[in-house]
């Protein structure tokens, strides 16, 4: 889902849904890597049955990583992908099924987003390589040294789209990988593997959902299957909730902001391309042991436990005295539905609902107020009750006006604060950061009567006074710099002019005039926008709960209407067109690629993208307008790309279809899923028998052979068969000469047209044990304090340090744990801050003890760290009161939900930046838009 903020919001509001993964690392002995035995119990103290991989979330970071040098060629990329899957497998250790889904051709509704991403990516790619070239020449001309340019083609990330050779190749490689692991990895021995490659239409995560939906609707499905889905998209959370499976966990990479990125030219960390000077590399660590990666920078994984989220939601959504029976499952569906208003891949979000402004909370409140009047739930198994939705929307519409005003106010407030902060920072740099005063004031040696230092009276109070004074003087200092303000203001960039001014009267008219270029009086047009949006909401919900309702439908505008426009919407939607077909892979490529990526297409097809006589030339503009729409960066804005006319596209392609080579025709065809099993899997013999008998028709899998998985299998044209040598598609890896794995085509169970997948918890499902503190804990357990559950295991034994461990810690971390200073809970300023010895020692400490600090960061941030100016010194000690998570993480190695906060990391200069609106550094993962 195109809402990166959603996950942040969720993890902050419901912190207990996050569990850090425990990962067993392969050990190395005499330069031989010893792989982890994944047959052993899962170190996370939970056993998963099925692991689903949304492969695009893996392919993107492996092919064009942002935090390490890019792989040199396609082979290295493939190996990187294999290693990534191995790593995930090691963490999750699924016992029954591994499902890999690569994005196939997506529904039309997604095409606009895909188009805009690809048009931008193509431009960004060209720009960044030009920039690189320019700086490279500059650096070389100044005598800098850069590693010689490798002969590699610029990797156009646009090739990660179904239908390209790259994707075809990837599918082959994955088949090889699966066969290899089934034969050689004991953890895979009894595993069923399903691969749904790019030739199967549908987005990866939705193919997975479709599989789960179809399996759980058949009688052999185990209602207590523990699913684990891998992927970083926020909409996976919605999808997981939409399944109503009681055990559903999502695994994703932990998002760490401000991760150091290597320079694209010299490959070193610590500066950006722009600042590259071609300096020789500095030794990292005492023996250059951190040469490749800065310490602590390996990406870690986290689990998101949806059953805990369900617990939270149950607490939040449960309503007493309803006019109808409260059904938690239905209210979860409504919650999911309301999240769509705030943003999804298929519709622009409503202008008044901004997730950072607590839009979901607002919606939930409105929902709870309105639900008494609606007389029922908004949705039912993916079908929307528009009359009730209208009540919600109009209720939002009533406050819309205030939301916009508030937004403006907050915005101005934020800017003011930002400015003041800047000023303060500047003022602080101009004078010593902290001067002691009062009894502690510095005095010249040997002057007056003070040759013998007096004893200090009441040190705590004195320190307090000093602290207050210090805070005060900063405020005083700011007006002095007032003269400079004008100059500062003028060199900051001018804000783009906002001519909508949503906070002023007449905003609606201006919005429609500016965004749609129609007059507000054009009721018909406005109605059309609303109708499309309503259709969109219905389509999206159906897509999540029942599968793709129409491959053709799409939202034909770039902007959403206002909530207050949703009047009389119940008549606006009837039913979607039935029997629509997805595009063929190459057709979709024509629909989403800019002319600059035409090299992935056959010659005559490519010509349609740039020939002035082409009958679809209007789909391929060179440059397009971007409406920042209140945002700051070009990549956040709305790309005003023309929409594709499906009829004309198909008509134009008709003529070039004969030009396809047989291989291209194969790539252009729609394929199916494959199922793979190893030698000892019970299904192996069954499949082998099918091949031996050369059964042509599809055969039902006996569910008892395969943990209740149902579906039909059909012989493959080029299957993996026992005793057949499997050639390695990657030169780096060897061929498989001894193969016992087998593969066959797999079809999900079919259901008749119009079958409705019920959004309910299945019979026989056991409710997971609660994780959250019960609301009435204090009442029933007066004597015990609540101990929060940190991992999957409820009865996890807490680890204790014995006395020798404490001694060790006390020895190495004197000022926090040491015996001096009267314990670390002491409120008095610890002696450390006055003690020059400690001040000097601080930088050393971080270098000497890298292993003690879990979240180590590059040393730069330590040595750059200005002295603790403006912060009352003692606040940096004593973790009980520490408001500064970054510092705490370093000192204590503490891990927990605080890692999610954007506050984490960053040097002090940035530490205070508001994680809220406006200031948004591009998230490192921003590029990995899947599909």
């Amino acid at each position: 889902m195109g809402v990166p903020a959603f996950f942040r919001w969720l993890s902050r509001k419901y912190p207990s849904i996050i569990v850090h993964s425990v990962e067993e690392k392969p050990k190395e002995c005499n330069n031989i890597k010893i792989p982890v035995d994944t047959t052993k119990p899962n170190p996370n103290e939970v056993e998963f049955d099925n692991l689903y991989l949304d492969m695009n979330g893996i392919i993107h970071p492996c092919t064009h990583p942002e935090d390490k040098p890019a792989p040199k060629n396609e082979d290295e990329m493939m190996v990187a992908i294999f290693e990534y899957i191995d790593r995930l497998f090691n963490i999750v250790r699924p016992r029954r099924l591994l499902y890999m889904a690569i994005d196939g051709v997506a529904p039309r509704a997604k095409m606009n987003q895909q188009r805009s991403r690809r048009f931008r990516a193509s431009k960004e790619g060209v720009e960044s390589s030009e920039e690189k070239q320019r700086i490279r020449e500059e650096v070389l001309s100044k005598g800098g040294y850069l590693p010689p340019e490798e002969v590699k083609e610029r990797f156009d990330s646009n090739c990660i789209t179904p239908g390209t050779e790259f994707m075809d190749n990837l599918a082959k490689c994955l088949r090889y990988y699966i066969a290899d692991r089934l034969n050689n990895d004991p953890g895979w021995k009894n595993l069923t593997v399903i691969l749904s490659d790019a030739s199967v239409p549908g987005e990866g995560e939705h193919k997975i959902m479709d599989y789960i939906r179809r399996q759980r609707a058949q009688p052999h499905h185990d209602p207590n299957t523990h699913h684990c889905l891998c992927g970083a998209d926020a909409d996976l959370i919605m999808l997981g909730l939409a399944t109503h499976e009681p055990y559903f966990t999502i695994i994703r990479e932990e998002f760490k902001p401000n991760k150091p990125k290597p320079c694209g030219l010299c490959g070193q960390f610590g500066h950006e391309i722009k600042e590259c000077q071609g300096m020789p590399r500095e030794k990292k660590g005492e023996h250059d042991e951190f040469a490749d990666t800065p310490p602590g920078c390996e990406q870690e994984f986290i689990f998101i436990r949806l059953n805990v989220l369900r617990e939270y939601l149950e607490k939040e959504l449960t309503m007493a005295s309803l006019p109808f029976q409260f059904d938690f499952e239905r209210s979860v569906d409504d919650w999911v539905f309301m999240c769509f208003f705030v943003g999804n891949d298929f519709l622009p979000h409503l202008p008044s609902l901004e997730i950072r402004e607590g839009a979901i909370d607002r919606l939930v409140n409105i929902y709870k107020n309105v639900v008494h009047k609606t007389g029922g739930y908004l949705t039912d198994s993916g079908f929307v009750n528009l009359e009730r939705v209208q009540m919600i929307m109009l209720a939002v519409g009533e406050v819309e006006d205030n939301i916009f005003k508030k937004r403006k106010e907050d915005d101005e407030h934020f800017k003011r604060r930002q400015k003041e902060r800047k000023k303060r920072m500047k003022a602080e740099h101009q004078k010593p950061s902290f001067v002691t005063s009062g009894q502690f004031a510095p005095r010249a040696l040997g002057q007056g009567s003070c040759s013998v230092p007096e004893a200090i009276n009441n040190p705590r109070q004195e320190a307090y006074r000093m602290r207050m004074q210090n805070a005060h003087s900063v405020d005083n200092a700011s007006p002095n710099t007032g003269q400079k303000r004008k100059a500062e203001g003028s060199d900051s960039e001018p804000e783009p002019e906002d001519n909508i001014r949503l906070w002023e009267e007449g905003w609606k008219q201006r919005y429609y005039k500016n965004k749609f270029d129609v007059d507000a009086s054009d009721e018909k047009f406005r109605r059309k926008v609303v109708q499309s949006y309503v259709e969109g909401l219905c389509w999206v919900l159906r897509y999540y709960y029942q599968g793709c309702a129409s491959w053709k439908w799409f939202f034909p505008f770039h902007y959403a209407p206002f909530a207050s426009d949703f009047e009389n919407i119940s008549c606006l939607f009837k039913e979607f067109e039935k029997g629509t077909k997805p595009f063929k892979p190459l057709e979709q490529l024509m629909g989403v690629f800019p002319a600059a990526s035409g090299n992935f297409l056959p010659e005559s097809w490519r010509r349609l993208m740039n020939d002035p006589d082409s009958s679809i030339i209007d789909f391929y503009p060179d440059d397009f307008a971007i409406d920042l729409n209140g945002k700051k960066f070009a990549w956040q804005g709305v790309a005003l790309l023309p929409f594709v006319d499906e009829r004309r596209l198909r008509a134009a392609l008709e003529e070039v279809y004969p030009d396809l080579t047989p291989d291209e025709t194969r790539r252009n065809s729609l394929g199916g899923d494959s199922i793979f099993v190893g030698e000892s899997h019970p299904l192996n013999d069954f499949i082998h028998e099918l091949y031996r008998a050369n059964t042509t028709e599809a055969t039902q899998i006996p569910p008892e052979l395969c943990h209740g998985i149902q579906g039909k299998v059909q012989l493959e044209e080029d299957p993996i068969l026992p005793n057949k040598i499997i050639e390695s598609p990657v030169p780096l890896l060897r061929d498989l000469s001894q193969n016992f794995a087998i593969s066959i085509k797999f079809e999900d169970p079919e259901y008749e047209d119009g079958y409705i997948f019920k959004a309910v918890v299945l019979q026989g499902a056991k409710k997971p044990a609660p994780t959250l503190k019960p609301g009435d804990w204090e009442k029933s357990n007066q004597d015990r304090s609540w101990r929060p559950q940190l991992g999957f295991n409820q009865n996890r034994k807490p680890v204790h340090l014995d006395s020798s461990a404490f001694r060790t810690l006390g020895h190495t971390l004197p000022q926090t744990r040491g015996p001096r200073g009267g314990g670390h809970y002491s409120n008095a300023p610890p002696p450390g801050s006055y003690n020059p010895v400690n001040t000097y020692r601080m930088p050393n400490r971080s270098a000497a003890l890298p292993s003690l600090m879990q979240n180590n960061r590059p040393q730069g941030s330590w040595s750059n760290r200005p002295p603790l100016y403006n912060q009352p010194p003692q606040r940096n000690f004593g973790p009980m009161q520490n408001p500064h998570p970054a510092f705490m993480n370093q000192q204590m190695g503490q891990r927990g939900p605080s890692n999610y906060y954007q506050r984490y990391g960053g040097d002090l200069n940035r530490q205070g930046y508001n994680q809220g609106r406006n200031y948004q550094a591009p998230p490192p993962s921003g590029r990995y838009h899947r599909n």
Partner: protein
Amino acid sequence: MGSECEVSEFLGQNPETAAWLERVRGECESDKWWQHRREFILRNLRDVCGEGEIPPLPETNHKELDRLLAYSMAWANHVFTGCRYPLPVMEKVLKMAENIKVTDAPTHTTRDELVAKVKKRGISSSNEGVEEEPCKKQKSTEDHGARKTSNVNDRVENRNQPSDTMESSSGKICDGNIPSTSLNKREVHSNAAQRTDTNTEFYEKSGNRRPLPVTKAKSSLNLPKEAGYKHDAAQERKSHSVKGPSQSSDNAFKPTRRFTSEDTKERQPFFNRLYKTVAWKLVSAGGFNANLNHEELLNSCIESLKATLDIAFVPLKDLADLPQNKTSQENIVCELRCKSVYLGMGCGKTKETAKAVASREAVKLFLKKKVVVRICRRKYNGRDVEDLVLYDEESRPVNLPPAIRNPQELV
């Protein structure tokens, strides 16, 4: 608006064509866009079928028709959503769109412009002043390419709009002739203008009233540094790609008159004098206040300097893209110019009130420390044109209301 009447009249006579047209309309096209695209299609329908014939239905996938639809969409995307296509396509569609008048196309900033802006900021902050040498060099080559491009621009536009000249890019910046304004460009112009001002001022002080050839050389040496930065990679690319076709027909059309720093420089001394005159007049009138007869004041000052105040009126409804805060009852617009430099504009129920408002606005310009003539982009007849505008020294370029008369013709 004449062409629209023509269209509706034609459709009234040919109901079959009208019915056919509705079938090629995009489902979600607004009336305004469709009205213009419809005209585009009708005007070029003879490419598809003979006169009077009913055109083929879209379902038949008629090749020529699809091509026409593609061009109409490309044109509409260009005009209304700010897309830019490769040059051959642009030339073709703009030629096909001859005589179609779009009065109120929205403005957009394209992605390249947006990125160029960011880049420019980054570069100028890091190595400004360090690399003057290469920049100058770079400039000479770029200027070459740029001039050629702008010639192409002119050519295309001339064909497009033979009656009035438009879109004279500054000669430094060239882009594939979008009629929509870009903030970026406007910024460039104002920057250029400011630089020129400082030059003029310098020479004025030293007693040189008239701009000398030396001044010219100086300013054109100074300007490129600025312009060099503006020249991002994308624009460079553009100018290269453009060279080819432009050479073949360089002389086919006469280039449009374009405002340069010369024009502003030429006028600046006059306005410096006018500034003094107005200032003294205001002092003797007891300072600026609302009760003064601003029109008389302005007029007498200008006449004392042997120039005339040009006053033009136009009914408000003819200026379709005025800001919305003008109420409908104020129905006459008055524009004041002097030496073809725009001074101000006012609205009113009668010509007199409009004139009074306009002159009050104009006099306000003289309340600051200095007035400056700048080249600005603004709308005229729905398209972007350059205009000479009088600013007070502090004001930043703002969104000007559309011009009443074509500034190019006034010079």
